């Protein structure tokens, strides 16, 4: 029961999807806009539950399912991003559905399932749960991308996304197989422990190979160059609100898990030596340059935004490259706090942009070429304003959230101790200027060009209007009072590396040979039994863990490992009890 409460954010989203399907069946045909509200409320509830419940790190394992979840603020933050983006997308999609002949409620249910997948992905500890989360997220999106059944582009977009996404998932699975082969475990914490200990036939080469595969697979999902070919076509063919969700939520979830996997593997010196961190730098610069240059020559607003999404993936990769030393807990690096904030600002802006763009569709035949958009701004002042605010936030204009996100991210990149940190930022800033050209081009066409023909667009609906207003307000809030969100981002970033949980267990095993009693002053989370006691058959016996600790602290430890030396148990517990009190 306590467990059920602890994972309630997950099942609330899944249940929301099921409820949406059931209501859809029960209500027969007709307007189904209330389903969007059901899904929006359900997903918002799930996000709120996550933020309320997942504070101190708790590890839940379900032995019969081989599923291990790590519930902490990292999962809460990224899960909330995915769920809230899903809620906004459901509302934004309302005016689209009747015109496209897809007013059947499946869009809403699929958005809820997809959000569930994303939430599962960011809390998964074992690689199979992680794969399952990724597939639930992706499979729902393949269908959503193809949901414009009347248009041949819809099916084509879905198919392209499906085939390339399927290969990417397969590669991620292969990475999981390699990590299993290297260590004999699918649990990320055990994998890390065994790699650090170098015991039991572990093989850092296989782990480094897995690291490359992870980079390729998740590079596909976040649309980083050179794994980006699908992006413009899929963004063009999918319904705009779905595209906004695809851009915001998939990037958020994929970057969260990419950061977790890469940083966890980099904890192992042997792996870090084989798989260089600078790959992220090169991929980031490549994405930024290619995305901003090729965006200039597009003439379809959705393709422009697709290339912009590739540019943003590049910025985020640079942000991921600019890791911070981890303080307080044994470990090397953690994600810097600007990346979660950036994902929040970017997701909101792209949902706003695509949602507003959707308003300009005409009579079921969606055409977003710039020539057709000419002068439509006068007929739809509100939607054009939303588009302007979102696009300027994407471009990084103050006082919107995108400006601050970009500024913070570049600050972190500059601070990296590398000869490439300054050139990288210079390139990124120049690319921002180039991409500003195509952002402003959309606005210029909408406001200043003469209308080509009739200017009828969608009649918007209250739901979509509400969601669009929410994105503008959120962008402004992020730009004007960013402090709480920046703090939240920093706390979320602190939980990226699971070594926090693993080193906790390591230290607990050394300090107290028997599993910690439930009545101990340590609070692992309300009513949840400490991880050691919960696991009936721990994959690594306590003895082995103790050996591991002894093993990875050799006397000739290099400087890096000096910092890894675990603090004494009591202090570590304190660190976990109050995340805010960390130095």
């Amino acid at each position: 029961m306590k467990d059920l409460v602890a994972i309630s954010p997950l099942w609330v989203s899944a249940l929301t999807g099921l409820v949406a399907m059931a209501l859809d069946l029960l209500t027969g045909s007709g307007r189904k806009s209330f389903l969007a509200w059901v899904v929006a409320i359900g997903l918002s509830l799930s996000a709120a539950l996550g933020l309320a419940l997942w504070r101190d790190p708790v590890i839940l394992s379900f032995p019969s399912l081989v599923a291990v979840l790590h519930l902490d603020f990292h999962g809460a933050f990224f899960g909330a991003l995915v769920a809230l983006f899903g809620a906004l997308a459901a509302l934004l999609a309302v005016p689209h559905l009747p015109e496209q002949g897809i007013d059947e409620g499946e869009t809403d249910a699929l958005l809820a399932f997809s959000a569930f997948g994303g939430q599962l992905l960011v809390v998964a500890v074992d690689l199979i749960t992680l794969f399952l989360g990724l597939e639930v997220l992706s499979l729902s999106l393949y269908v959503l991308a193809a949901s414009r059944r009347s248009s041949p582009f819809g099916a084509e977009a879905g198919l392209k996304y499906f085939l390339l996404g399927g290969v990417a998932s397969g590669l991620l699975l292969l990475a999981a197989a390699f990590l299993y082969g290297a260590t004999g475990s699918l649990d990320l914490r055990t994998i890390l422990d065994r790699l650090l200990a170098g015991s039991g036939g572990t093989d850092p080469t296989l782990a480094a190979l897995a690291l490359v595969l992870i980079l390729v697979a998740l590079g596909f999902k976040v649309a980083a160059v050179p794994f980006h070919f699908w992006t413009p076509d899929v963004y063009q063919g999918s319904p705009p609100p779905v595209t906004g969700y695809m851009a915001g939520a998939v990037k958020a979830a994929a970057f969260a898990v990419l950061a977790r996997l890469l940083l966890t593997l980099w904890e192992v010196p042997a792996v870090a030596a084989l798989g260089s961190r600078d790959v992220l730098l090169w991929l980031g610069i490549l994405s930024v340059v290619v995305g901003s240059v090729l965006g200039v020559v597009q003439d379809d607003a959705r393709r422009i935004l697709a290339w912009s999404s590739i540019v943003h993936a590049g910025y985020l990769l640079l942000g991921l490259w600019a890791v911070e030393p981890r303080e307080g807990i044994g470990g090397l690096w953690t994600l810097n706090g600007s990346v979660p904030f950036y994902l929040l600002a970017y997701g909101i802006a792209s949902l706003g942009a695509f949602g507003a763009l959707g308003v300009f569709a005409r009579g079921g035949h969606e055409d977003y070429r710039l020539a057709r958009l000419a002068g439509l701004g006068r007929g739809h002042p509100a939607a054009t304003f939303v588009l302007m605010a979102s696009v300027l936030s994407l471009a990084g204009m103050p006082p919107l959230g995108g400006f601050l996100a970009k500024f913070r991210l570049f600050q972190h990149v500059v601070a990296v101790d590398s000869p490439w940190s300054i050139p990288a930022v210079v390139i990124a800033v120049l690319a921002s200027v180039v991409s500003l050209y195509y952002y402003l081009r959309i606005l210029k066409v909408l406001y200043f060009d003469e209308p080509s023909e009739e200017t009828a667009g969608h009649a918007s609906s209250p739901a979509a209007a509400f969601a669009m207003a929410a994105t503008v307000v959120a962008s402004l809030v992020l730009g004007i009072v960013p402090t709480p969100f920046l703090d939240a981002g920093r706390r979320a970033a602190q939980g990226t590396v699971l070594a926090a949980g693993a080193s906790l267990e390591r230290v607990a095993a050394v300090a107290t040979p028997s599993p910690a009693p439930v009545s101990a002053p340590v609070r692992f989370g309300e009513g949840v039994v400490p991880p050691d006691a919960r696991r009936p058959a721990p994959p690594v016996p306590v003895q082995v863990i103790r050996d591991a600790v002894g093993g990875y602290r050799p006397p000739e430890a290099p400087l890096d490992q000096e910092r890894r030396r675990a603090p004494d148990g009591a202090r570590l517990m304190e660190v976990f009890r109050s995340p805010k009190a960390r130095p």
Partner: protein
Amino acid sequence: MTSVPLTAWILLSLALVAIGIAGVLTRRNLLIALMSLEILLNGVNLAFLSFARFHGDTTAHAAVLVVMAVAAAEVAVGLALGIAIFRHAGSLDLDRANRMKG
């Protein structure tokens, strides 16, 4: 009966994965592309099972069952997309379905 070394199993599974990727990226028929995706996933399954045998551990067996279920779901989605493509293009030829360029 002599046992086949782990390396051979892994090389076989990598070959299957490579065949799968090449098939998805180069074959023009959607059904063959779907089959290639299956070959890819089954190659990974083989790697899982070989490693499980090597480690004397059964965790990966559960993983393989999960993967098989996911692969079935993936094929279901793929076939549904194939029907959608067929309605518009009149064939399952991926080149003819490819209309968006740029």
